[in-house]
């Protein structure tokens, strides 16, 4: 049980060792890289939705902006041809800026209206990407994205650090990029943790819980919301930048559509809104299932049954599975797998009470200084 408590460092340690294991599949490693990238995106949404309580339905737009910024700044047929570092920083800044500029005018909308407008903004960005052919290459996507990691570096410089022959020639393939994404994911988790405990993070939670009360206590909701959007959009832009570099193309604009936003919301809610560890777990479970596990299971099923009918493929049922998971979660565990404590207490007052009682008793038992105190008469 104690081991499970520290699952996060253990998970990171296992993932850090994975590429070094002899015979570890490079394909699988690349799939993990994509998983880390989605986890960063989900953390961005977690700041906006989980901490600040804004139902943003267009997070995929920032993912797309990040990806296309990297595409435009690095690719050979545009005059910029920057290194990945420069492009990634630009992607974060531009995404955050777009987030702030598009959200500022709509801040006075509340609840569902805000949700719908963010959905609309997400779609407008998607349509712009799809339709501005001269800049974004339309549905083809920008490729090949082939920039070196740092100014003056090409991917080839890294080749002498190659441990196994299947580590590939391009740095974005494997496992340099794997480690970059894993490291950034760790950094983002640390950043979100610090934000959570900072003055800003506590103000976000206050705003989420009760905007009116928070305003009365002297918080400025507009500034706080913009800050949340800036952080969330920036992280989304970072994830998008990594995504384009990992695939070495921005891919079809369809990648950045509403489904992705929805999927990310599912990850956040499944894992536990407002709890960065929970959101990480939710993303790994949901995206891992979608991107990795279904593929493996489908092959198994096909080998077993010997037919490739779409009805027998797990991937043909993926949305039904997602839908059922969401509905059952909302019915039986709306606070997510690893809930933020405050949200769990809200949704299950009786549990909170019992926990409070247990904590009080434990405190009593562990404090020999006051042995004569009777059992607490007041309920916390």
């Amino acid at each position: 049980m104690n081991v499970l408590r520290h699952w996060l460092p253990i998970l990171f340690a296992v993932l850090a060792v994975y590429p070094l294991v002899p015979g570890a599949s490079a394909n699988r490693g690349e799939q993990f890289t994509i998983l880390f990238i989605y986890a960063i995106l989900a953390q961005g949404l977690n700041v906006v939705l989980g901490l600040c309580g804004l139902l943003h339905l267009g997070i995929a737009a920032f993912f797309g902006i990040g990806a296309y910024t990297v595409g435009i700044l690095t690719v050979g047929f545009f005059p910029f041809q920057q290194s990945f570092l420069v492009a990634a920083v630009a992607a974060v800044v531009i995404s955050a800026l777009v987030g702030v500029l598009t959200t500022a005018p709509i801040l006075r909308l509340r609840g569902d209206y805000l949700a719908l407008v963010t959905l609309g903004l997400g779609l407008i960005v998607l349509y712009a990407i799809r339709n501005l052919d001269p800049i974004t290459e339309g549905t083809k996507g920008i490729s090949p994205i082939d920039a070196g990691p740092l100014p003056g570096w090409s991917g080839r410089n890294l080749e002498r650090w190659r441990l196994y022959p299947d580590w590939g020639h391009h740095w974005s393939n494997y496992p340099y990029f794997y480690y970059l994404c894993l490291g950034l994911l760790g950094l983002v988790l640390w950043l979100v943790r610090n934000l959570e405990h900072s003055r800003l993070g506590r103000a976000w939670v206050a705003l989420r819980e009760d905007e009116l009360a928070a305003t009365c206590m002297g918080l400025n909701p507009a500034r706080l919301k913009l800050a949340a959007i800036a952080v969330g959009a920036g992280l989304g832009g970072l994830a998008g930048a990594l995504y384009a570099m990992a695939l070495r193309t921005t891919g079809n604009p369809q990648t950045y559509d509403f489904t992705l936003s929805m999927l990310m919301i599912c990850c956040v809610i499944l894992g536990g809104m407002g709890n960065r560890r929970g959101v990480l777990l939710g993303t790994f479970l949901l995206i891992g299932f979608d991107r990795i596990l279904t593929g493996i299971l489908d092959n198994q099923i096909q080998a077993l049954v010997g037919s490739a009918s779409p009805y027998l493929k797990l991937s043909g049922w993926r949305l039904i599975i997602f839908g059922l998971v969401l509905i059952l979660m909302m019915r039986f565990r709306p606070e997510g797998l690893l809930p933020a404590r405050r949200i769990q207490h809200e949704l299950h007052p009786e549990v909170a009470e019992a926990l409070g009682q247990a904590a009080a008793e434990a405190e009593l038992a562990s404090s020999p200084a006051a042995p004569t105190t009777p059992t607490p008469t007041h309920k916390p």
Partner: protein
Amino acid sequence: MVDVWVASEPSAGFLQFLLLGLVIGSLYALIALGYTMVYGIIELINFAHGDLFMLGSFVALGVAIWPMGVTSADAPTGAIVATVALMLLVTPLFCALLNVTVDRVVYRPLRQSPKLTVIVSAIGVSFIFMNIGLLWRGATPVKFPDLISDVNLLEGTGLRFTWKDLLVVAVTVPTMIALTVFVRYTTLGKAMRATAQNPVAAQLMGINVHRVIAVTFALGGALAGVASVIYGLYIKAVDYQMGFQNGLYAFTAAVLGGVGNIPGAVLGGLLIGVVGELSKAYLGAKWSEAVIFGILIVVLLFRPTGLLGARTREKV
């Protein structure tokens, strides 16, 4: 995607696009009514509504192909009328039943939960519906039987208004009038309005709130069913993703008019239809979606509760 403009007609200009927009807009209005009624009563953005509409069109397609076997406009008029009538009977019934079932099984246990919980459940239902549609008819668009003739009823005026357009108007307008009469003048309609205004007070007055909500879902579902039949006959192709696109337009229409407001949904639907067609004609089809959402955002900026929505104070 609604793409019905027939290029063979000589340049008809602004009026033609306006007419086409109104026809398509009345379709959106029909779907928007389902959103707006449900939102008005339990404040739920029913993300599954568009996909319910999609499943409805698949049922309508099944009705046309299987029991009737009428698949072209050359069939005898009687057979066509019978087929359309049967579709208009079976599909709304199916959609209403499905919607009520979903409400009973999924949403009703969550009545006391936070709003986000219910919205996420609705997203879940939408995923399930979409997957069912995908497994049912595959990933590619399916042809819908072309039952209604394309003969122009306004020949000689320079405008184009076919039997299909007439069908849309002839079905949607009476449906909307019937709905308005129902909500405004019947006891059940009164109960619905009361529940929308204040569920607790309504319950105290002896209204069975659960039943009223079920009726709302049934009505919304039936309207989506009617819309799906008309859509299939008008656009002549259906696919499993059409629910998302059209649902989004319809929801936009509902919000544009002021969500929860029935005349508002109709106005919003017509506006979306007209704006969509005009922007398609003058800016190119690929920008029409962006224009629609742009207008939505601009309207919400200046009237945050929609065009006809009442300004309500947030309850503290």
